[in-house]
């Protein structure tokens, strides 16, 4: 501690080390919160349902997605990335997941929302398996922290059906 430079260096190193520890503690504190998110999705309309020239089925839906994700936000939350995926089984794949819509929620105030929209991303099957298909709509979210570990979870909503014939 005999010179200005020595003390400045020691102080800065210690300060940054303590900062790293505080960030680890902040990230750990996220484990202490027990969120209770909720969501519901209605398929308002099947806009069209066709088989493409390349042989793959495609369907366009109008959806009403509503959710309350406010309990996901902690003091260490930067933003929540949320997406809605259609999930179903085919002979070729035991699980197909197609992302239909996504969004970024930047603050707790915006985490209780509803949106009335057609699917943001195209719902195209690998093949021609969608006629009469029963599928789940699963809301996935990633809670992105200001520092530390990211938490991801989902909410499965089941019981949706596609039409038996093309429209």
């Amino acid at each position, binding site marked *: *501690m*005999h010179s*200005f430079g020595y*003390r*400045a260096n*020691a*102080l800065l190193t*210690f*300060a940054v080390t*303590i*900062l790293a*520890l*505080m960030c680890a*503690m*902040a990230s750990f*504190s996220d484990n202490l919160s027990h969120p209770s998110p909720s969501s519901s999705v209605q398929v308002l309309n099947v806009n069209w349902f066709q088989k493409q020239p390349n042989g793959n089925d495609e369907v366009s839906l109008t959806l009403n997605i509503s959710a309350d994700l406010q309990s996901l936000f*902690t*003091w*260490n939350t930067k933003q929540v990335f949320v997406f809605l995926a259609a999930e179903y089984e085919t002979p070729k794949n035991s699980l197909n997941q197609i992302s239909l819509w996504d969004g970024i929620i930047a603050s707790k105030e915006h985490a209780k929302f509803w949106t009335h929209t057609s699917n943001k991303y195209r719902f195209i099957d690998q093949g021609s398996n969608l006629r009469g298909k029963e599928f789940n709509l699963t809301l996935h979210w990633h809670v992105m922290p*200001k*520092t530390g570990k990211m938490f991801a979870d989902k909410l499965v909503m089941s019981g949706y059906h596609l039409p038996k014939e093309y429209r």
Partner: protein
Amino acid sequence: MMDWQGQKLAEQLMQILLLAFAAVSFGTGYALGSFQMMMLIYAGGVFLTTLVTVPNWPFFNRHPLKWLDPSVAEKHPKPQQQQAMSLKKKPAKK
């Protein structure tokens, strides 16, 4: 210039102050639910600690070292170069 006690004091003060500000800033930030508050208080704390412990404050030099007076030092000159070299010769080892 800092004396030995002053250096020790500077180091201890630095560690205690930083740890104290870390605890206060984390506690306040967590209680208020504000990450930004934690960072602001801690940054302020680092700055304050720098002001207290890094410059050469007089209270770090209350037990100054007794350096030899220059006039006394002249009466006892340093050994010559040749003398130093002869002293360095060591017997060969086998």
